[in-house]
């Protein structure tokens, strides 16, 4: 431990802590636009300056030292920070009023926090072209302050390498290799760049107008569904604590916004488990294409199609939960209600930007005869629609979802958190193999935010080896282990592997809110602390659920009886399963 003084206050922190982090311990918020707890400090923005022995240094990349005396606040520092910020702003357009991040922007917050009250430096905003080629995320270089967070996330955390620096100095630009459009790069549309961007330079591809048009059309039956992770994050946009689970308020809000039917992707998650556990039991018993990878994360599917095409047969053929709901809404549900399927429009509210791409990924995403899911909106876009509707969200009464695609178990709700899909699948696979329920429904070793979590589960004497990969950037290690074992002719290190592209799982997906709760307290919108709180929101719902097992979802049983026949059967394969293809890393 190291003892130092910050603004005359005694602080004791671990050796190696930065001055910036040490200051937070005594409630001093040193401003920064490039530092983020998820990435290494880059000393890029120059706002975090402090004085040590009268010398001005950057606190994000200076570790504390014994007996150090730090000054974080005097008139020279305040003036210098203000000038540095004014220089940054001189290359940034004054577009705040029509920016997607208006009101939720770190740069805007900083300008107000540091008291910027003039616009005297000549504005030089480089001419640039908006990149919306992915139709999932939009990159606007004009609003970029080149802090480098997105590049660090994309390269070093996600190991995707779509974003990079081009040129240097004043003309540095963040873009794909050789200025390639993102759709032509390895970009997997995970949107982690967007949730880490301190400005409006990277945002979701806004499709709210499309949905308003559908709602307006009287002949259209709009069917909406919400993903597990949406329910524990949307509240942040309306002043709730991190992790508050607001499922039934959200149902109410969706009806007020104007959707005709409100379903839940959690129903699809239970269905996915039935199909996926059936598939796994079959593949495990026959030693067929093992290990099996989960397939509900579209960014992971994109990644494996580009980077590990040799492993495509290992992916589960199951569609993701919202795609299953989409396919059923336009077949089973439409038939049951006597609706013309061509008039049914499915809108998925997702914590994810990659889902916007998933709906057109493969021709099997139109298994109902129409595109199964018409539009994907992120949690942030739903918040926008609720605000546009003038709804007082906090005052809404709880309402149930509509039947029959609304019922769900606790196993479904934990899909939104790393380890959740694996846990849910094991509960049902165990039942399928043994005919008995698991005594202990949670697997603590695969919970939490570690990079790769492994466990061995005994099912009727068979040892099932599982791995949970938390963040696609950690998948390489697992792939190497598989390759090594295969080349040596050894037993496989794993039988079943869950991969979620975003660190923490969908709860911190690329489409989730990025609300700064009073600059001081939670300045970043997404950190491990927030990931844990949102995860807890889902885990608590599972623990308190009357039914925690997908195979006991009554609506699902009815669906098989009335429509699908058997799990993994012909009709299931037609509607609920998909295919994959190799994709070039660059076009």
């Amino acid at each position, binding site marked *: 431990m190291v003892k130092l003084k910050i603004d005359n206050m005694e602080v004791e922190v671990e050796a190696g802590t930065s001055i910036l982090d040490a200051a937070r311990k005594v409630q001093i918020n040193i401003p920064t636009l490039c530092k983020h707890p998820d990435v290494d400090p880059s000393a890029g923005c120059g706002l975090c300056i402090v004085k040590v022995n009268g010398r001005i240094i950057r606190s994000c990349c200076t570790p504390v030292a014994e007996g150090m005396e730090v000054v974080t606040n005097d008139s020279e520092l305040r003036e210098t920070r203000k000038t540095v910020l004014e220089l940054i702003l001189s290359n940034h357009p004054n577009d705040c009023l029509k920016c997607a991040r208006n009101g939720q922007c770190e740069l805007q917050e900083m300008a107000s926090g540091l008291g910027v009250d003039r616009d005297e430096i000549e504005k030089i905003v480089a001419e640039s072209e908006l990149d919306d080629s992915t139709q999932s995320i939009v990159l606007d270089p004009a609003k970029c302050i080149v802090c480098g967070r997105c590049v660090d996330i994309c*390269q070093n955390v996600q190991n995707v*390498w*779509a*974003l*990079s*620096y*081009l*040129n*240097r100095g004043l003309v540095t630009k963040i873009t*794909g*290799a*050789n200025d390639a459009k993102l759709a032509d*790069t*390895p970009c997997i549309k995970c949107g982690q760049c967007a949730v880490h961007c301190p400005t409006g330079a990277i945002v979701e591809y806004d499709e709210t107008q499309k949905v308003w048009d559908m709602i307006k059309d009287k002949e259209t039956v709009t069917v909406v569904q919400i993903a597990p992770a949406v329910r524990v994050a949307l509240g942040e946009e309306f002043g709730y604590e991190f992790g508050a689970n607001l499922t039934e308020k959200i149902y109410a809000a969706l009806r007020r916004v104007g959707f005709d039917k409100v379903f839940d992707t959690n129903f699809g998650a239970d269905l996915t488990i039935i199909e996926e556990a059936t598939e796994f039991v079959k593949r495990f018993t026959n030693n067929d294409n093992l290990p099996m990878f989960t397939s509900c994360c579209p960014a992971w599917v994109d990644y494996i199609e580009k980077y590990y095409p040799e492993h495509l047969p290992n992916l589960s053929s199951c569609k993701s939960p919202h795609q299953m709901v989409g396919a059923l809404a336009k077949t089973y549900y439409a038939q049951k209600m006597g609706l013309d399927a061509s008039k049914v429009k499915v809108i998925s509210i997702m914590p994810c930007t990659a889902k916007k791409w998933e709906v057109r990924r493969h021709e099997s995403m139109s298994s109902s005869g129409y595109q199964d899911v018409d539009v994907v909106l992120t949690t942030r876009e739903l918040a926008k629609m609720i605000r546009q509707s003038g709804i007082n969200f906090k005052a809404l009464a709880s309402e149930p979802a509509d039947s029959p695609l609304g019922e769900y178990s606790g196993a479904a709700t934990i899909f939104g958190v790393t380890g959740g899909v694996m846990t849910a699948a094991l509960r049902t696979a165990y039942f399928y193999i043994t005919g008995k329920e698991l005594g202990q429904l949670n697997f603590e070793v695969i919970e939490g935010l570690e990079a790769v979590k492994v466990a061995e589960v005994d099912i009727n004497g068979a040892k099932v080896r599982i791995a949970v990969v938390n963040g696609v950037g950690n998948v390489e290690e697992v792939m190497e282990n598989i390759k090594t074992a295969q080349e040596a002719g050894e037993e496989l290190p794993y039988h079943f592997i869950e991969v979620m592209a975003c660190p923490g799982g969908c709860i911190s997906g690329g489409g989730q809110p990025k609300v700064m709760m009073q600059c001081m307290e939670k300045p970043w919108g997404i950190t491990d602390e927030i990931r844990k709180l949102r995860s807890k929101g889902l885990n608590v719902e599972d623990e308190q659920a009357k039914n925690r097992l997908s195979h006991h979802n009554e609506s699902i049983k009815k669906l098989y009886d009335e429509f699908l026949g058997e799990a993994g059967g012909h009709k299931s394969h037609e509607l609920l399963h998909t295919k994959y293809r190799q994709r070039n*890393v*660059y076009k």
Partner: protein
Amino acid sequence: MVDVSQAAQVANKWRKKRGSLIMALHEIQGVKGYIDWQDAMDVAMGMDIPLARIYEVLTFYNFFKLEAPGKAVISVCTGTACYLKGNDKVLEKFKQELGIEEGESTPDKMFHLQSVRCVGCCGLAPVCVVNGKTYGRVTPDDVPVILNEWRKTFEEN
């Protein structure tokens, strides 16, 4: 025999040596004069380095060229002595006459303009070098003369 590109051969040669990307790129440009998308791809595959990183390096150092340069490479020295002696105005004149910026080539691929730091003959400042031929004590008025000299040379060959 399988046709393996020069870039792929170079990449293969350097693949085992850590931190050798710049060496490999130097070698490719040394032979070919520039590094295009396919070369960068070959290096990415051969050395197992993300293409994005290769372009970060290629565009960070202005030594590297992404397109075939013009036949006559004009290097205007902007080292301290040459700069103080007015080579910034000479560089400006070249840009005007050729209608291009630093690091660019003329559309007819006859000239490529670049600035360099100190060519080691400060006594002659300000200095320009065209394809190895050194011009000392250059003034902006000399620029059209130098360009015409090279145009003539190319016409004669």
